[in-house]
């Protein structure tokens, strides 16, 4: 019996090693197509190790159990003339296979606990970023910085034509954004995750971070990327129509590059502030408005303002009607519909530009302009 068990054990080892080596090979590359990737953080490596250990234990147990079962299926079949035994219990064996798994679990609970405590240690972050989920985009705000606040939205960049299969799909189909989150390498970054509407979940596998974005509550989570690179992820919690279309791209760069980037963003923010006080010509607003339209309005209102999920803009009563009403819809949205309130999402310059654009594009020809100050005044009521 002992001999048999040993032989079974040896038999079990073969497939286990095979499976593990397949996974190990797959894990050799940075991103695997068949297995979890350890990613670029220490926590990610620990999670990956936990994953592999428990997968290994499960595989060994599975091979043993199924080995016994298939042995029985082969040797104890009636067609081979095997007569059934009559035993139906064994207290010793039953106690053994209750107690042994318990200790295996205990052994697994130890590394799981330490890793979990590590993940929950949010202290001593060098950088805080507020991550806010919107239907269907992410907003990033950098805190704890001197100078202007930096905050921006990150939208899906994949064109609708690729999604509709009228154009060849690019390499990063659905995993590309107009403006990625930029983080410095080897820096403990704390994310303060929340949402504006429904629950989202911010997931970047390579950073080993997945945390739900719950409206009205702030969740803390941290990462520390040890390698520069571009890391991609997606919203993980069903959040409505475009749940599959709100990717995350994180650009991890050197600390120097990060400071330069931040300075540039702060500069940009300062410029926007200045622009707020300016008056623009119709042409200037149209140029700016076109790009804003394409990233914020196009998905629902169509490339030519023909409508879709949203109402048509070309020739619509709103876009060719009262200016104040049009502005109001842009800022406050239409409650109960897919039309969101963009007042908090676009700055006053961009809002002025896109409303102007809508009134003077797609055959609409109102000739009027909205200035940033109009938006500001409207918001103040």
């Amino acid at each position: 019996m002992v001999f048999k068990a040993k032989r079974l054990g040896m038999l079990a080892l073969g497939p286990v090693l095979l499976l593990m080596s397949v996974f190990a090979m797959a894990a050799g590359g940075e991103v695997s197509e068949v297995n979890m990737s350890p990613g670029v953080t220490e926590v990610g490596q620990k999670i990956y190790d936990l994953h592999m250990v428990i997968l290994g234990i499960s595989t060994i147990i599975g091979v043993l159990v199924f080995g016994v079962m298939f042995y029985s299926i082969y040797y104890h079949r009636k067609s081979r003339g095997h007569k059934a035994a009559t035993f139906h219990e064994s207290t010793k064996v039953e106690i053994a296979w209750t107690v042994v798994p318990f200790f295996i679990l205990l052994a697994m609970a130890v590394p799981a606990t330490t890793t979990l405590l590590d993940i929950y240690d949010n202290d001593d972050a060098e950088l805080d970023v507020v991550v806010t989920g919107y239907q269907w985009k992410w907003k990033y705000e950098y805190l704890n910085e001197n100078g202007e606040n930096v905050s921006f939205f990150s939208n899906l960049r994949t064109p609708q034509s690729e999604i509709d299969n009228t154009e060849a799909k690019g390499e990063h189909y659905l995993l590309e954004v107009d403006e990625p989150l930029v983080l410095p390498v080897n820096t403990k970054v704390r994310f303060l995750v929340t949402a504006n509407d429904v629950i989202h979940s911010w997931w970047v596998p390579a950073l080993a971070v997945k945390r739900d974005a719950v409206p009205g509550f702030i969740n803390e989570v941290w990462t520390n990327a040890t390698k520069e690179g571009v890391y991609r992820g997606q919203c993980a919690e069903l959040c409505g129509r475009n749940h599959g279309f709100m990717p995350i791209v994180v650009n991890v760069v050197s600390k120097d590059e990060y400071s330069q980037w931040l300075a540039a963003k702060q500069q940009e923010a300062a410029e926007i502030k200045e622009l707020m006080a300016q008056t623009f010509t119709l042409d200037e607003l149209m140029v700016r408005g076109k790009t804003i339209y394409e990233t914020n309005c196009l998905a629902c209102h169509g490339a030519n303002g023909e409508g879709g999920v949203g109402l048509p803009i070309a020739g619509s009563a709103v876009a060719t009607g009262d200016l104040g009403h049009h502005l109001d819809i842009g800022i406050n949205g239409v409650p109960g519909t897919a039309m969101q309130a963009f007042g908090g999402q676009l700055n006053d310059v961009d809002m002025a530009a896109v409303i102007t654009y809508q009134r003077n594009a797609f055959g609409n020809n109102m000739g009027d302009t909205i200035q940033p100050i109009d938006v500001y005044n409207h918001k103040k009521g």
Partner: protein
Amino acid sequence: MGDHHHGPAKGFSRWLFTTNHKDIGTMYLWFSFSMFILGGTFAMIIRAELFQPGMQLVDPEFFNQMTTLHGLVMVFGAIMPSFVGLANWMIPMMIGAPDMALPRMNNWSFWILPPTFLLLASTLFMEGGAPQAGWTFYAPLSTTYAGPSVTYFIFCIHVLGLSSIMGSINIIATVMNMRAPGMTYMKMPLFVWTWLITAFLLVAVMPVLAGAVTMMLMDVHFGTSFFSAAGGGDPVLFQHVFWFFGHPEVYIIILPAFGVVSQIIPAFSRKPLFGYDSMVYATASIAFLSFIVWAHHMYTVGMPVSGELFFMYATMLIAVPTGVKVFNWVSTMWRGSLTFETPMLFSIGFLVLFTIGGFTGLMLSIAPADFQYHDSYFVVAHFHYVMVAGAVFSMTAAVYYWLPKWCGRMYNETMGKTHFWISFIGFNLTFFPQHFVGLAGMPRRIPDYALQFADFNMMSSIGAFIYGASQILWLYNVIATIVAGEKISDEKVWDGAEGLEWTIPTPAPYHTFETPPKIDPAHAHS
């Protein structure tokens, strides 16, 4: 024999007014099969859209309606009623009772189901479409941000809960009061045991689900803010309440399946079930643990670390009684005299695939690792190994096992075995690759995906079409059996089968055990 002996009434009124446990069981089974086909159709639409990257067939809203309705119809329409149907047919015949304890309520608990699902399906044609927040319908996506159909959905859930509670009370009352003299608790067939425990779970948690949807109703229509932080509520509260129902719910689905294979494996091993007592205790332990592990579905919501640890340890513990069950089934086969008729094939399929689902369940219980698994296709693969290869395979095994007893005709064994192998291959082709894409980072419930997931998704879709098509074979085999199967009259259809249901004539007469059978006190459980 009784002096008042009558057969079934004629025509449609037989089915509408029947209080006969066999008629009601039959209706439950056919109803659940039709829901299985409907939910399967939704799944086919999902897999067809996911066949390749890009949006081809449906728009994202409709895709979300499909994932939502697929889950709801499969859980509440197909799997749960199928086991209630099986309970109706088999529990009285297994414990030597003439019928269920509350036959009129039995009729009612069935007949409220079809209109409810008709109403639920009709939401597809409403303005704004069917519910699209997933079968877990997390607030506020399912409340503030939901279309008008959510109100109908809430009503449906209430009625389904009512039906389940009535069905469960009936089963509890029957098992407790109507066992034949000498049929002590520890002599009951394991299927009866698992259903008794399941019924208690149902009675405990269906009201909790009703509470959750009632709070939704209040939030949607009466200005409350249970699930809205803006009014002092908390969206995560919904998840706690939902999963307090939802986790026991998954055991509600799987425990009767445990019962079924615990009947079938001994029959085709020609050997008594190994460790009957420990099977009962393991079932009870799993039921108890199911109440204290709900938040493992919510590791990423931002619970305090102490909460995470508690739910992680409690969840890991479930592996112990579940392991006991698997070891017992394998030991039942050990040194038996095995044959591999269709019910046995499906039971072995269950044993292998459910165990794999158990392993991935154990992996998911590890909270830090779950931060990577959570809401990915790894989870989709995991719960389909448990729900389909677990519950549906065992249900399929049950139909093949007891169908000859029900209708006195033998099914086509070759076709049955073919059904098994196509199902087995189709199922694995569908769901095994989903482990890979999940680990590689594909979130669940997305209508379109990045290019690196394309190959496995195509494989998955092909597998799903194969698995789906094989169910037509099953339907054909069952109908062909009922209409023109080879007639049999042996009381014991399977030579290794034990239990009271095999002591009555074949086909099972309309009324059985009008006088209680004698139970041999020396006779062990069956």
